[in-house]
């Protein structure tokens, strides 16, 4: 193995170029999508016996409703077929909600104006269900409008399900899951997730500096963690996996996984004095590659099974980890190893 002989510093070019590309992909174009748990919206997953034609279903749904950001993905595997329907909002329903919010906020100051808005809200909701204001006035009317809006929302979900069911002849008790996140809640989750990620980053920096107490190696380990997350984000952007409450844990997890190999490498190069540093690097690579390989093997099993059975949560987690592990292979052995070797050899020359 002559991996780290010669001008190993040239390896650094690869992670540097990739960093630039990844940054572009993540932050400029196409960018990472936010999942509905973070921006609000509705997701309906339906399991079917036969493959569902996503294009046809999309046309059917758009003919009846006015969706904002509707995406339909149909999945078929040897074991199951199904379809994931996701949208941010529906135009008429949004109007009903806006009128309802207006009614609520105006109620204290101008109750007659509020009543007009509440009635408007009800008439928008009427697109989905039949309901009247029952001659109510004042607060009761607003409560009624709220109730009708909720019902309209669920009626929309029901209609989506029944359109899918009748056009693709699904059985009566088909498997389904629905998820609905109000935009305000999504925003709160997003803010929370940002705080948590920031706190985690600070925590990692403290831990790494505490264990290694040398500037360049510590920075290299921390950068490796960041590069892994960046790789995962870039590949998520390219494959259309959204940033969500499922993929965020996967990203955090990734840091734990990837830092393992970096810590191994750093410890062996800095703290051990046997053989030459280059040989120690190659030894570490043997151990490190086994580690990454076992993880890749386990995650691939997760990926394949969750695809076959359409367990979206697990599929996203597995895909994100897998992406990150590829990044880790690059950053550990093409960036971290050369930097550390250079650092150790230079120290030796100085001494």
């Amino acid at each position: 193995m002559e991996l780290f002989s010669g001008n190993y510093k040239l390896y650094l070019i690869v992670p540097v170029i990739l960093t630039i590309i990844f940054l572009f992909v993540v932050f400029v174009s196409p960018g990472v999508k936010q999942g509905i748990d973070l921006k609000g919206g509705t997701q309906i997953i339906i399991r079917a016996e036969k493959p569902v034609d996503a294009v046809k279903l999309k046309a059917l749904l758009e003919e009846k409703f006015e969706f904002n950001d509707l995406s339909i993905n149909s999945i078929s595997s040897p074991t199951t077929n199904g379809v994931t329907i996701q949208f941010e909002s529906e135009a008429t329903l949004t109007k009903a909600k806006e009128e309802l919010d207006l009614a609520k906020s105006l109620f204290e100051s101008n109750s007659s104006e509020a009543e007009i808005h509440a009635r408007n809200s009800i008439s928008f909701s009427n697109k989905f269900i039949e309901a009247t204001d029952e001659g109510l006035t004042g607060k009761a009317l607003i409560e009624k409008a709220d109730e009708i809006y909720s019902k309209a929302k669920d009626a929309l979900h029901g209609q989506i399900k029944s359109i899918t069911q009748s056009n693709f002849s699904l059985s009566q008790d088909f498997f389904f899951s629905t998820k609905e996140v109000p935009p305000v809640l999504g925003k709160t989750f997003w803010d929370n997730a940002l705080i948590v990620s920031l706190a985690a980053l600070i925590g990692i920096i403290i831990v790494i500096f505490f264990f290694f107490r040398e500037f360049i190696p510590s920075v290299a380990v921390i950068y490796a963690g960041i590069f892994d997350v960046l790789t995962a984000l870039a590949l998520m952007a390219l494959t259309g996996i959204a940033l969500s409450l499922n993929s965020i844990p996967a990203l955090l997890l990734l840091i734990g996984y990837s830092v393992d190999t970096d810590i191994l490498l750093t410890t062996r190069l800095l703290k051990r004095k046997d053989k030459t540093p280059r040989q120690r690097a190659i030894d570490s690579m043997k151990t490190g590659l086994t580690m990454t390989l076992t993880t890749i093997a386990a995650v691939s099993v997760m990926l394949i099974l969750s695809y076959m059975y359409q367990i979206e949560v697990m599929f996203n987690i597995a895909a994100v980890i897998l992406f990150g592990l590829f990044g880790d292979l690059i950053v550990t052995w093409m960036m971290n190893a050369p930097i550390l070797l250079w650092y150790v050899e230079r120290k030796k020359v100085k001494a």
Partner: protein
Amino acid sequence: MRDLFKNWKILLLLVFLFLSLLSISFNGLKYGIDFEGGTQFQIHLEKPLNSSEEVAQVTSIISRRLDWTGLKDTKVTAFGNEFIIAQVAETDPAQVERIELLLKKQGKFEATLEGKTVFSGKDILHIYKDSAKGYGIIQQQEGFEWHLPFLLSEEGAERFTEMTFHKCTISGFDQSTGRTYECEKTYFFIDRPEAIVLMPPVMHSKDKDALLLGNFAENIPQGTEIEELLLNAQTPLILADSNISETDKNTLINYSSEFENIIVPLGVYPEDFLLDLNALGFKVNQVESEQNIPWIWTVTGAKEVISLSEDVTNMQPYVEELKDAKKYSELVIRGFGSGQDDALTKLSNLTIILESGSLPIGVESIGKETISPNLGSEFLSVVSLMGLLALITVLIVLFVRYREPRLVIPMGFTLLSEVIIVLGFASFIKWNLDLASLAGIIAAVGTGVDHKIIISDELLRKESDYETSLVNRVKRAFFIIFAAAATSAATMLPIIFFGFGLGKLVGFAITTLAGVVIGVFITRPAFSEIAKYLLQSKKEN
């Protein structure tokens, strides 16, 4: 081999393994809606709550509110001071929507006497929650007495005085206290339904007996009569087996102008019978019956039966004419608890009822997720299969790399122990396992494999490489392991401390962290001992 079992690190592993299996077999594993099916509501409050007491109060109000609807297996947990997560087994969209409305709206409280409303939620101006006004528990000789004082509006107090006037009769004479009285009872309802109740005669007589017997936990006093309950609930009752007689049909038709809804027990009547009711113009609401609680008590929304007392009825002191009656606007409800805790629970439950289950802080928004039970149970079996296959795959990779069963077998054993101990921990803290927390376990096991590879590679390095004892090599491996574990902990702890509302993330973080801690302190030390022993014995052979 015997030496190995004397090693405390291995004994520690075995002890934890045993305790975990014990915990799993006694407590069982609890699954979230991902696996059981059901609906999870994420309730975001308008403003953060100020204290842990407030959090507990809001949680218990929501929990009560769900219980009142006859829902079973509801779980309500607070995340931080701004989020409440409520989990119910219901997946039918119409029912889920009903629950969502219920969580948003406050309930309607009514106290009735002889079938007429004496006062309702809007008559209650204030509930005095300070001990100066008598709120709280007093220890008496016979047990713990609780007092709940509240203030009625002018109009409410007037109606109360008028309706309760002389509603007691003298029942006897007591040496120490003077006369004793037998007074009429008021019935407390939350969201009393405007509906007809239809049930089979068998069930009616069962409920009748159960009501007479009383139910302490449900606040049903002994000797409650079904006729009186129905009179107070103002719900007409029709008894019918699986076919409706002509007379019943006519009665129903008469009612149809007044009532829109009809309540029937779930799963008792055949489908076409229910369709007949629909044809008569009724919306049918099927309500499940719970064991030990009379069904009729649940469906009428009855919550409490409270006796009037001689003073408020103007019997003691005796007032001859209604026009001279003393008007009581400040009323006190009293009751006994078998113990202090019991009295406290009774008091707080009744307070929630009088407050109509309304939250001290409004609900900003509700998110919800429903998973059908059939999908959930499939998920569970697939995930189990996934775990098993992942473990086997990892072991195959390890075998290819090391070609040393002496190493791979203890690796497999300790990995499996790790999974069992994390599951044991989850069952011990009664954590609801969902997809994310199982992903956390897989994650922890994943780092476990990595660390065992580090230990093995240290141990297997050729003697000539560097003169150092096996003990030192293990030490070196553990430096790496500790550093790596500390990094994982640093990523997970912020989620546990600041990840409020990120329910799924918290589950993931808890299982990952538990796995990491268990790995570092229990399974990995044990593995290094086993590996050391096996490798040494190999050398000796």
